[in-house]
């Protein structure tokens, strides 16, 4: 399979993640969008690593990303939990204390 297909899949996944991040109101769903974008990046790493058979740098990078993503999800969920406790909602439109 040609490498372009991976890139296209990755791009589609990135766009979906991006769309989810921008449009969804629930913070948890937004976090899910972030996971989608991370995985779009992973697909790119994996796809690129087929051109580099000896070093496997891309695949290791993907593993790192998964680990970091897990950590990030844990921290993100904890924050969301805290936010929920404080504001009694996870609707991002209502959490607008930074408004200028």
């Amino acid at each position, binding site marked *: 399979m040609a490498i372009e297909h991976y890139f296209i899949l990755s791009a589609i996944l990135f766009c979906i993640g*991006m769309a989810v*991040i*921008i*449009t969804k109101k629930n913070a948890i769903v*937004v976090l899910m969008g972030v996971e989608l974008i991370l995985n779009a990046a992973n697909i790119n790493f994996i796809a690129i690593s087929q051109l580099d058979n000896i070093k496997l740098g891309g695949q290791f990078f993907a593993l790192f990303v998964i680990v970091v993503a897990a950590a990030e999800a844990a921290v993100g969920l904890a924050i969301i939990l805290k936010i929920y406790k404080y504001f009694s909602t996870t609707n*991002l*439109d209502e*959490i*607008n*204390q*930074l*408004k*200028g």
Partner: protein
Amino acid sequence: MEYSELLRPLPWTTPTILCLVILALPFVSFLLMAAAPDSSRRLMSWVSSAFILIAACISVYLLLSVWAQPASHTRFDWFSIASMPQITAGILLDINAALMLVVVNVISFLVHVYSTAYMKDDAGYKKYFAFLGLFTFSMLGIVLADNLLIIFVFWELVGLSSYLLISHWYQKDSASKAAKKAFIVNRVGDAGFLIGLAILWVQFNTLDIEALKVLMSQSTLAGGEWTTTLGYVLNADWLTVAGIGLFLGAMGKSAQFPLQVWLPDAMEGPTPVSALIHAATMVAAGVFLMARVFVLLDIDALTFVATIGAITAFMGAIAALTQHDIKKVLAYSTISQLGYMLMGIGVGAYDAALFHLFTHAFFKACLFLAAGSVIYALHEFEHDTGIKFDAQDMRNMGGLRKKLPFTFMAYGVSALALIGIPFFSGFLSKDALLSGAYAWADVMSGGGFSIYYLIPDLGFLTVILTALYMFRQLLLVFFGEFRIAAQHPGHSLTEVKEVPLVMKAVLTVLGIMSLGLIWSINPLDHSHSWFLGALKAPTILTPGFDIDWQPRLIELTLANHIKVTVISMTMIVIGALTGWFLYKPGSAYTKGYFQRKNTVNKLQALSYNNWHLDEAYKLIIEKPVLWIANGLSAFEKRVIDKAIDGFAVINVIIAHLIGWIDRMVVDGFVNFSVFFAGRIGVMTKSLQGGRVQSYILIAVFGIVIMIFWIIW
């Protein structure tokens, strides 16, 4: 002589320092009276009387010390203008200044003492004494100053204090009007005084009297031109104008024709003030000034002075004939006597004029204070009985000789002195004056008969009139029946009471000074007077003056003396007899006097209204001035006001236009920029809307732009 030498500072000496003390005492009294609390006014008035007494004692001492001595003169630099010679100031104490010091201080002291009784219950007591002090101070300033400029300053101060004292009862409309009249009429004379000063300044660049004398004698008259050593040249007429200008000042202060109208009205002031200011001292200031500048007058100016003096003497005496107010008679008599004095100056009888000034000061002050006593006694009578009448109107008096014997004595003595009866002071001085005038007419007409004889003739006529009006007053006030009481028989038990002791004491002193023996060892001959012995007319220094003029005058005065005495005695007898037959008790005049109207016929109206001078001034000056003023006022209302209104309307229109531009254009621009900034703010504000997702969207958008930028 150089100016620096002429105007060099002269050191202070004991006499001049004492003069300064004399000058300071009344001023301190003025300040004390002004600052003292109202509760201590009685005490303070005695303190200020004591101040004047000290000044009087010092002036007597000074008189004795300068007797037959050269004048003491102290001078110091005052200020200088550009390259002009120094303006100096100083004190010049010569014999006539010393005599004047004595007169002013003694009479001022007596008036102070008299006033403590006369003004006892007056609400303005404190003010009154303060202004008496101010007046005395200013008068002494005129006497002591060595410089015409300083004399002028004090001259104005005297005018001011006279104004303040005339308007003492300022609630009375007539009093405040009289004060204004006195002030304004005096200004007219002062304008002439200033002109005289200006001419002297232009010619000599100094107003110091001693320096003027030297410079005047060094200036020359040739070919109609008056040249000074400095090389200033003026037409010769200006020499006469300068003399007449100085005399105009004297005309205002000494109430000479045609400026005499203020003096009768000035009688609205308290009677002691009339005695001090309007009989003895201030009105004599004009005569004194003329004596100071006597040597600077030329023959034409002197003739002018003599003419005006004689006319005034006659007019004043005529006006005194028909007055009904006791003080008005004395006021017109004062005008007449001042006319005598200035006539004396004019005819070169300098010593006689000053002699008359001094004798007149005492007997006229005595007459006024005695009249004040009569008024005081009648006021008390009015108060006791409750009858309302004018206490100054002679129609209400009569027969007071028995009720006020002491006042009658004082009044009688001083009235006889005024008439010029032998053995009284007035005889000596008036005789000297008339001898001088007669001699002058002889000299001026050069042996023949001429119009110059009119001057002494007017003088002799005035003697008749003086005797007539004084006898009239004596008979109407002190003889016959007491008219007001006779009209109200119910009050026959209430008596007119004699005045307090203080007033009597003052009258005694002044009465004694009216006796001839005080002034001359031989009371029948003025040439034996110690007074005239000390005062010798100074030689006139004006250029072109006939050197023989003065010696011939003196010679003829002595020669004419007996003739003149006989003539004037005859005149007095004529006047006195006429007076007796017209106004003796029981005569037709006195019987109808209580109901008598102010005037009966045209001639009496002419006299009663002082030759209709007031009316004439109304017609000649007041009416045209008012007419012009009204015209100007109408012009201002119709033309100037209209123009200003139009200008204002145009301004309002322009203002509206500018206002519109302001609102629409300037405000519009400002509002637009505000609106624009606001919109930008709103727009940029939404970027920071607090919505995390829009931040992200923008961030992504930004990254996309960066990527595109990098790739291209």
